[in-house]
């Protein structure tokens, strides 16, 4: 296997597309964690709902409608963003000043609610979304053919990473977000409406999860429990990269993707163990993550 360049290449690409798809979701998680300091266990649930909403929109739009799939994915991101707005305004904002425990219980409650919401609205059978037109075939990459939709996932993941990097590092809004991660009180005393920044970050973070759910839908199948696994993988990415760090999440996603792809190939019995060992090792030796900064207390 190891001396077969085609297999190695395909595994590498699998890891890449898996990792970059996860990045889209984990980016939202790390943003929320960095700015709001809320450990959002419901992030996987938002991803799941994003997938289901995409499924419904795709089936609702007439098949001949141009760009039906893409509109559905964007629609899912918007629906999730709106949902996040309602959640933030009505409940979450009251918990910022409380300690971790009520925040945790709150996100647990969202996880449980989401589970039942999906059961009521979409039932418990496994659903799937077909590949969008134009992405049904494999393309020739020289070494091997590769499914074009998975290739597309690599591209869109990278595009979103660059776009997020630009927003956070090159715009006024981004500067405020970065400032909010470091010193909320200072920002407030400068006359900035920090509550609004929090709201926007939460909405954007959840919309990213919804977007990720929509984009991942054709490459996976939709089931009620899919959120529980995704959230753990996103936590691993965020931990490896450093809580609150976007470049960290990107690096973490790449590492997790490759670890997953080659772990399955090389140590098929223990690839899961390998991934959690990585998480344990980072926390033990560099708890602030590979690209995070040590917190000064």
């Amino acid at each position, binding site marked *: 296997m190891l001396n077969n360049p085609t297999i190695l290449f395909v595994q590498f690409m699998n890891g890449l597309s898996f990792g970059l798809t996860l990045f889209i979701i984990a980016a939202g998680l790390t943003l929320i964690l960095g700015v709001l300091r809320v*450990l959002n*266990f419901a992030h996987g649930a938002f991803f799941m709902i994003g997938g289901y909403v995409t499924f419904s929109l795709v089936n609702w739009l007439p098949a001949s409608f141009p760009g039906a799939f893409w509109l559905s994915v964007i629609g899912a991101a918007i629906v999730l963003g709106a949902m996040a707005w309602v959640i933030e305004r009505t*409940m979450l904002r*009251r*918990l910022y000043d*409380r300690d*971790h*425990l*009520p925040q*945790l*219980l*709150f996100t*647990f*409650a*969202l*996880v*449980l*609610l989401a*589970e*039942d*919401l999906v*059961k*009521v609205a979409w039932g418990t059978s496994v659903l799937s979304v077909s590949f969008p037109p134009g992405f049904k075939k494999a393309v020739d990459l020289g070494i091997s053919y590769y499914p074009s939709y998975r290739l597309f996932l690599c591209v869109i993941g990278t595009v979103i990473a660059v776009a997020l990097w630009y927003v956070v590092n090159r715009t006024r809004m981004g500067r405020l977000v970065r400032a909010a991660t470091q010193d909320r009180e200072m920002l407030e005393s400068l006359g900035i409406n920090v509550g609004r920044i929090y709201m926007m970050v939460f909405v954007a973070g959840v919309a990213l999860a919804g977007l990720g759910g929509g984009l991942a839908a054709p490459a996976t199948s939709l089931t009620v429990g899919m959120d*529980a696994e995704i959230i*753990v993988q996103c*936590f*691993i990415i965020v*931990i490896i990269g450093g*809580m609150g760090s976007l470049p960290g999440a990107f690096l973490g996603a790449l590492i997790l993707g490759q670890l997953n792809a080659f772990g399955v190939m090389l140590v098929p*019995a*223990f690839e*899961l*163990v390998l*991934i*959690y*060992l990585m*998480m*344990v090792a980072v*926390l*033990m030796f560099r*708890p602030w993550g590979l690209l995070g900064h040590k917190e000064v207390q």
Partner: protein
Amino acid sequence: MAGRMSSAKWFGLCVALLLVLLPLTGERYFMFLGAQILIWCLFALSFNLMLGYGGMISFGHAAYFAIGAYACAIFLTTLDLPLVVALPGAVALTVLLAAVIGYFCVRLSDIYFAMLTLAFAQLVWAVAFKWSAVTGGDTGFIGVKVPEFLHDATVFYYFVLVVVCLCGALIWTIVHSAFGKILVATRENRVRAEFVGVNVRRVQHVTFVLAGGFAGLAGALFTLFNRSVFVELAWWSASAEVLIMTVLGGVGSFFGPVIGAAALILLNRGITEFTEYWPAVLALILLGVVSGVSLSLAEGQKHAVIGPNGAGKTTFFNCITGHLRPTSGTVSFQGKALVGLAPYSIVRLGLARSFQRINIYPRLTVFENVQAALISDRGLTFNLFRSSAGLFRDEVRAVLATVGLSEEEDQQAGLMSYGRQKQMELAIALASEPELLLLDEPTAGMSPQETLDTIALIGAIAKRRNLTLLFTEHDMEVVFAIADRISVLHHGEIIASGPPEAVRADPEVRRVYLGEAGDGAT
């Protein structure tokens, strides 16, 4: 028994009676339900040892339940061991693993601690999931050989009842012991606890192991109950479940988790009769709790170090007491090097300190604040069995009398005036009977009258106890009233040191500190 019983005691008595008499109903369903509730009560109690008493939020407590469950199943079935070996063996294995995992976890705090416990728990899950040969993997460990005598529902129920009650009593003893008091102190204020000589990490490690061990026993009982073990027991949502149970019942009281576990299981049984949407019901309960109910749970010399703001006075103190590590140079006390020692070991050599900003256990009473320092000083930190009620009562009162707080011993410390809190800090520092007392701005933020009182108090105590005082101070009046010797720090360097009159006259000092134009010297 003297006096009337409170309603809580009546309620407890009724519950106990109900538990003992339950098998008289003859209904197997009730006995199984009772056993299930008891097992989860033990699990929640073990978790609350960490969460409620230690303030440690673990996301991976289910791992120890699962380890205990698998170990019990493997010992009984695969190895065909008798119950008297399998049950203690399962607990021992859990304790061992919790000791190893806990060793690494307690090095981190807050969110990092939570994340590492989660990571280890997922690791346990992954191993159980993939190691099919031993654990049964995805299909689970099915067909546990439960000893013959436990097949009878009544016997099994009483067996679980006895084990859980014994463990409950043991946990009760632990949280009401000297160790329990110290554990609460570390939760309330980690830094303060270190500066009365508590090795916080070790206290947390011991707690972690204890909690793991009890969870392991609960898991082992579950194996006997369920006769099969599934890998989901270690998945993170199982850890979330025990957290929910514990918090719903109330982390502040000993029986809160018990009530939470019982209520949740009964509610689950009741509601699933009517609707399949139990998760949504639970979610609504959680939202109610979060939005409405408060989760509150429940040798004789006096040396002053002075200098302008930012001169490095507090940094200097932190270097001496091990809170910071100096980049160069040495610190020694009675000829023993202090650099690199943890605060708690430095304190044990006979140093004590107060903090510039109030650093106390705000939710404990004045008495308990001082008692925690004494427990630590007398080496009872790791005494899990000696009751803390009334422990060192006379000594605590004597210290409180010294600082003039005798009247306030039952007050909640955080609710007292600033000046009183400062006095109490002094009492905490004095409790360990130090030879060298470091005071970081002992009168900062006090009213003029409180300042005068405190000066008099410090002077008197130092004289009576023959204490060596090292203190930093802003207020020149305080400095010259107390100090025998003064050192002036500027930009981290000592620019003058000597008796008050000499320092007062030093031109360099007058220039940098008293703000006067110097004579041109740089």
